[in-house]
């Protein structure tokens, strides 16, 4: 009786060939040539990177100067506005001819903007030294456009003792231009980390060492010999997929008052372990992979208090493997030392797309610094030829990120 006749089939078909369908080569050739005409993915990544760099450069170097009128306190209960500093908003009330006037004009204290109580009161007397220029800060919760509209409602009048300073009354109201933008574009640096995520797959009972071991069945060397030893023995395999804490460094560029664009780099270490017990031995193969990701996320701030802010963020991320290590060890179950069978540092090439969606809470701890916590989910697009790791084992994964945002300007 030959119950295992099916075992002979692979050998029987080892060199068996069928005539390919007519026209297959022509179809393959046409497919290759049409794909060759398409721009390679690298071109699009480079173009996207250049566009992002150009956008950041524009915000950093070429953005419109935000309104920063400087106030100088001078002895005698008077204050001065340094004219060259008055540009966007206040230029709506000061004709350009003013810029050719003397650099400093004295105006009474009562027309100065009210300084918030976070700043210590200043007593002005003869002995008060001249203070350095200080910016009008936009206080938390304040809207620059509101400040501007309030300023419009109480413009400098003809009676104001500003000397021969031309006044707003001389400017027709319709010629008062609106500020070009009602928000100050900001750039933030983000440093964050996501907690680890682990999943242990079910135990698989079978015979021999599983084909899922990373070293191939046709590989030579000690692990191949070990595989042959365990070939027809009952085996139990435990597989474990983990993503270790990931680290991210990003740049967040404001687009509107609520919307911003975030990009950067994300380093994700993955660890995959297969442990098989066959016969009197245990073999463990551990694969460490490092992926570098480039996210392109849109962030929408839907509530902003004095210190606390809530937002949602999401978008695609492209990840590619940058380093990997595969190590196979064997250990006799009867006791004995662990023997390293194979160790390889060659790169296991892989790249994948994912889509991330998170909601975050941000708390401002300093004037420019905020801490945030950001729970979210990521969806990794599955691929048939993906390597066996955390991403191929989980299409979706939960993650909890936390970090620090530093507002540059």
């Amino acid at each position, binding site marked *: 009786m030959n119950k295992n006749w099916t075992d002979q089939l692979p050998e029987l078909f080892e060199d068996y060939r069928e005539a390919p*369908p007519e026209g297959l080569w022509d179809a393959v050739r046409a*497919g290759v040539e049409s794909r060759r005409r398409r721009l390679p993915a690298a071109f699009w990544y480079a173009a996207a990177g250049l566009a992002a760099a150009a956008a950041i450069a524009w915000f950093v170097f070429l953005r419109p100067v935000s309104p920063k009128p400087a106030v100088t306190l001078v002895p005698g209960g008077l204050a001065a506005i340094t004219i060259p500093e008055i540009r966007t908003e206040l230029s709506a009330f000061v004709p350009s001819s003013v810029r050719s006037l003397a650099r400093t004009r004295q105006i009474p204290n009562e027309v100065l903007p009210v300084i918030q109580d976070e700043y210590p009161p200043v007593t002005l007397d003869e002995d008060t030294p001249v203070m350095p220029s200080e910016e009008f800060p936009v206080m938390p919760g304040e809207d620059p456009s509101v400040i501007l509209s309030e300023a419009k409602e109480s413009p400098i009048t003809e009676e104001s003792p500003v000397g021969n300073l031309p006044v707003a009354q001389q400017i027709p109201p319709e010629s008062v231009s609106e500020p070009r933008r009602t928000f100050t574009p900001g750039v933030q640096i983000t440093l964050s980390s996501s907690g680890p995520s682990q999943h242990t797959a079910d135990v698989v009972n079978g015979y021999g060492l599983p084909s899922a071991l990373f070293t191939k069945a046709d590989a030579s060397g000690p692990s191949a010999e070990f595989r042959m030893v365990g070939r027809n023995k009952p085996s139990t395999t435990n597989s474990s997929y983990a993503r270790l804490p990931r680290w991210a460094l990003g740049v967040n560029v404001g687009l509107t008052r609520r919307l911003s664009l975030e990009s950067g780099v994300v380093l994700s270490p993955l660890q995959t372990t297969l442990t098989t017990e066959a016969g009197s031995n245990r073999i463990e193969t551990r694969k460490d992979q490092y992926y570098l990701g480039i996210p392109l996320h849109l962030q929408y701030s839907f509530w902003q208090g004095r210190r606390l802010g809530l937002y949602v963020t999401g978008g695609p991320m492209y990840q590619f493997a940058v380093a990997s290590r595969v190590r196979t060890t064997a250990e006799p179950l009867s006791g004995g030392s662990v023997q390293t069978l194979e160790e390889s540092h060659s790169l296991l090439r892989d790249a994948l797309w994912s889509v991330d969606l998170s909601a975050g809470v941000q708390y401002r701890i300093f004037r420019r610094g905020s801490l945030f916590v950001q729970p979210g989910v990521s969806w990794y697009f599955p691929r048939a030829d993906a390597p066996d790791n955390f991403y191929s084992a989980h299409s979706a994964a939960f993650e909890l990120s936390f970090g620090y945002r530093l507002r540059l300007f």
Partner: protein
Amino acid sequence: MQERRLKNSSSSRAGQNSPDEQELVRLVRSKDPDGIRCFYDRYAGYLTAVCSRYLTGRADVEDTLQESFLQMIDHIGRFQYRGEGSLRAWASRIVVNQSLKALRKNGRLVYVEDLPEQEDEADFSLPEIPPGVILEMIRSLPDGYRTVFNLFVFEKKSHKEIAALLGIKEDTSASQFFRARATLAKKIKAYIKEQNHE
């Protein structure tokens, strides 16, 4: 610059001086037209046989092989050479994956749950039967039987792995395999009997 095109004729430089697998990988990776043609010539026959084990329609086989070859050429950069034969094994895995995708897409994977067939004693010798005949027998199996049988026998997958791959229960995979084997054994015996009468 003169555009290099893939040759249309079957005679190519690659056919005259056949490179080894590593050299072939290098040529395909650099999108060398002769290298791609050589890669096709070397593996098209074998991969057609692999694909024909899973798919029965000629058009399906052609579409799947075309997509598989394009996938291989596009993703050859991810292939890691592990000795002679590893390129063929890698290409074969891609064809199997694409074939399974085609079966799922066409909704053909129906698993017939009838009474298990009693397997007779297998008193035949396989090497006496031409592989082409056995292939036709495998192709005549219902889609569910055939797919599980191929994955278990040729791809060396366990029933657990097959169940995960096809989205079925492990028991279903096992019963489909035993029915496929019993059906195939009957066909082989009938063939041998017919040959002996002739």
